């Protein structure tokens, strides 16, 4: 009768939910959230799964249009109080000492989930070396369009485990998850030679 975009369908959301579980189980593993020829980006697919009327959401980079806000059902909240925070990867929000909700030692599950959108989570000049639960020895991920300041800030937010945040890095199609248990260090590749040596580089 009335058609609804695939991103809102139950089948799509079940598929994306499984993919997010896989991403959090294996931090650094890129999972594809969109389907072929999908107009919606991976971040919206993730939000469609994670949001309902009981969830609060902060959209720091105004990526969500009015129609999608209504369909997500989430309530708007300030970034420091929201369950979910959506932001662009290009830089931290303006304002000193900004922090998403970290929870407390008795309620660590109240820590926010931060979804960052960048150009690529499968290749780029910024290398992330990951260790921790779900990672055998070490995982290296190359990303593009994410300011290293985000990862420095994340280091402070997760420094008092079990409090902290869980992060999902998205490009248009893929996502990788960084739960608060993952330890991360960054390296920026500066030369064309270094970039050319990345796996998958052309």
């Amino acid at each position, binding site marked *: *009768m*009335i058609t609804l975009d695939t991103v*809102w369908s139950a089948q799509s959301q079940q598929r994306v939910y499984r993919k997010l579980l896989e991403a959090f189980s294996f931090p650094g593993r890129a999972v594809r959230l969109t389907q072929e020829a999908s107009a919606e980006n991976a971040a919206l697919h993730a939000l469609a799964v994670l949001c309902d009327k009981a969830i609060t959401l902060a959209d720091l980079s105004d990526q969500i249009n009015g129609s999608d806000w*209504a*369909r997500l*059902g989430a309530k708007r909240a300030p970034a420091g109080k929201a369950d979910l925070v959506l932001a662009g990867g290009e830089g931290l929000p303006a304002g000193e000492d900004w922090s998403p909700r970290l929870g407390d030692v008795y309620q660590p599950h109240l820590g926010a989930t931060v979804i960052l959108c960048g150009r690529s989570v499968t290749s780029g000049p910024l290398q992330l070396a990951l260790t921790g639960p779900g990672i055998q020895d070490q995982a290296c991920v190359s990303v593009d369009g994410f300011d290293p300041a985000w990862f420095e800030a994340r280091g402070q937010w997760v420094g008092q485990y079990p409090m902290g945040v869980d992060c999902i890095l998205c490009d248009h199609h893929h996502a990788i998850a960084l739960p608060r248990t993952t330890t991360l260090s960054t390296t920026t590749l500066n030369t064309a030679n270094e970039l050319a040596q990345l796996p998958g580089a052309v």
Partner: protein
Amino acid sequence: MVDSNTPVLDRSQWAAALLKVPAEDVVSLAESLTKRYSAAYQTVPQAGLGLMGFRDSVMGEPFYLGEIPLSVAQVRLTDEEGQAHGGAAQVMADDAGLASAIAVCDAVLAAELPGCEQVRVLVEQGGGQNANDAKVRRAMLDRTRVSFSLMNHADDQEQAG
């Protein structure tokens, strides 16, 4: 049968009335209406369970009576002039498609768009059924009422005798 003396129902009662009409009639009418207008979902239609809250009649304490099937839909119809008209439905049924159809009918009837007469016929048909059901329930309730004043009168007569 539609009676000219039948009072027009308030919008808050349209969904309950349409729920009394055969579902296939409502769905097929809504499908024909969506072909005339550009229809889109405002929110994702959902079907599930809701907890029915109640208050006890003695202390007024809130409690949950139980679970009910609940379907919700909210739609927007855009006519040829580009004017948008909203409709919504929240019904006790486990059928998001039926809730969507009722929401479409709600939008058409509220805005009195072309096609609203067909919706009005179904609403009045369902409203009449609801009124009949309420009458039957009232009659059943009346039969369960006990007049304790007769018992007092019987006690007085025994003491006098």
